[in-house]
């Protein structure tokens, strides 16, 4: 634990235990999403599925990077990950991104993907709101993750015909925002 770092956050008026709980829940959402997206990506087959397979893969890898980036901050603030992975799964801040009944229904697949990203956008917006101006490190980290989740949401939303995302799919390295937190 980073004792003084935790004290500074508490002194700024944040309930540190609540913040840690939120970070653990969101870390769970990231790792479980990485797992469920693996199944989704494997099932994005055929002419329609192939078109979004790579975007789903980028979102999958970046969500795993989010888990990796969150983990040290949880421990810095005096928290920990649950001993049981089953318990960790069940406290996720977002519902599991389950494979739809008909995996050949690309629209249904995209709906699962976009809803998972929207849950993440809400979660990190909440953490940013809590920590802005108070916990500079968690804010920096949450904002970086939020930037990537917003891009994920916009990609899937565009494929659903909800309007342009405003940008291309990632070219080159993944996690342009979160990369600085990864060792």
């Amino acid at each position, binding site marked *: 634990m980073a004792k003084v770092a935790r004290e500074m956050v508490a002194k700024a008026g944040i309930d540190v235990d*609540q913040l840690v709980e939120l970070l653990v829940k969101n870390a769970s959402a990231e790792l479980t999403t990485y797992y469920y997206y693996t199944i989704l990506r494997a099932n994005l087959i055929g002419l329609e599925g192939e078109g979004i397979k790579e975007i789903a893969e980028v979102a999958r890898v970046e969500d795993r990077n989010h888990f990796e980036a969150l983990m040290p901050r949880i421990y810095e603030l005096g928290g920990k990950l649950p001993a049981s992975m089953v318990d960790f799964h069940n*406290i*996720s801040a977002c*519902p*599991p991104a389950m494979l739809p009944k008909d995996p050949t229904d690309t629209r249904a697949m995209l709906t699962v993907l976009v809803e998972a990203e929207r849950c993440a956008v809400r*979660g990190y917006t*909440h953490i940013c709101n809590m920590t802005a101006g108070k916990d500079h490190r968690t804010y920096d980290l949450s904002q970086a993750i939020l930037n990537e989740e917003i891009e994920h949401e916009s990609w899937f939303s565009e494929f659903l015909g909800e309007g342009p995302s405003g940008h291309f799919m990632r070219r080159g390295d993944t996690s342009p925002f979160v990369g600085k937190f990864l060792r």
Partner: protein
Amino acid sequence: MPTRTLREFTADDLRRYNGLDGSPSFIGFQGKVYDVSKSFLWKEGRHEATHQAGTDLTQALVGAPHGVELLEKYPVVGVLVEKTGRGPISGKRAGAVDPPDAAS
């Protein structure tokens, strides 16, 4: 066709449905009581490390990172009242008429 009458909940009634010790998870919002027991995000009545079921969350939703649309998919199981038999605690009663505008 008979109209379905919703159960009336006072604040004390609602408090009993906090999702703990096996109780269902009910939350209040704008005069209605919603059953969120089956929601993945309300396990044991707790939501995002911030809210506990068994309470009126009307004000809390103002600062939430989502709107009422996420709540509307859950079943309504009752209405909030100050005392049972007195009608809903917030929102209009069915058939209520607005008072005349004082400026007119």
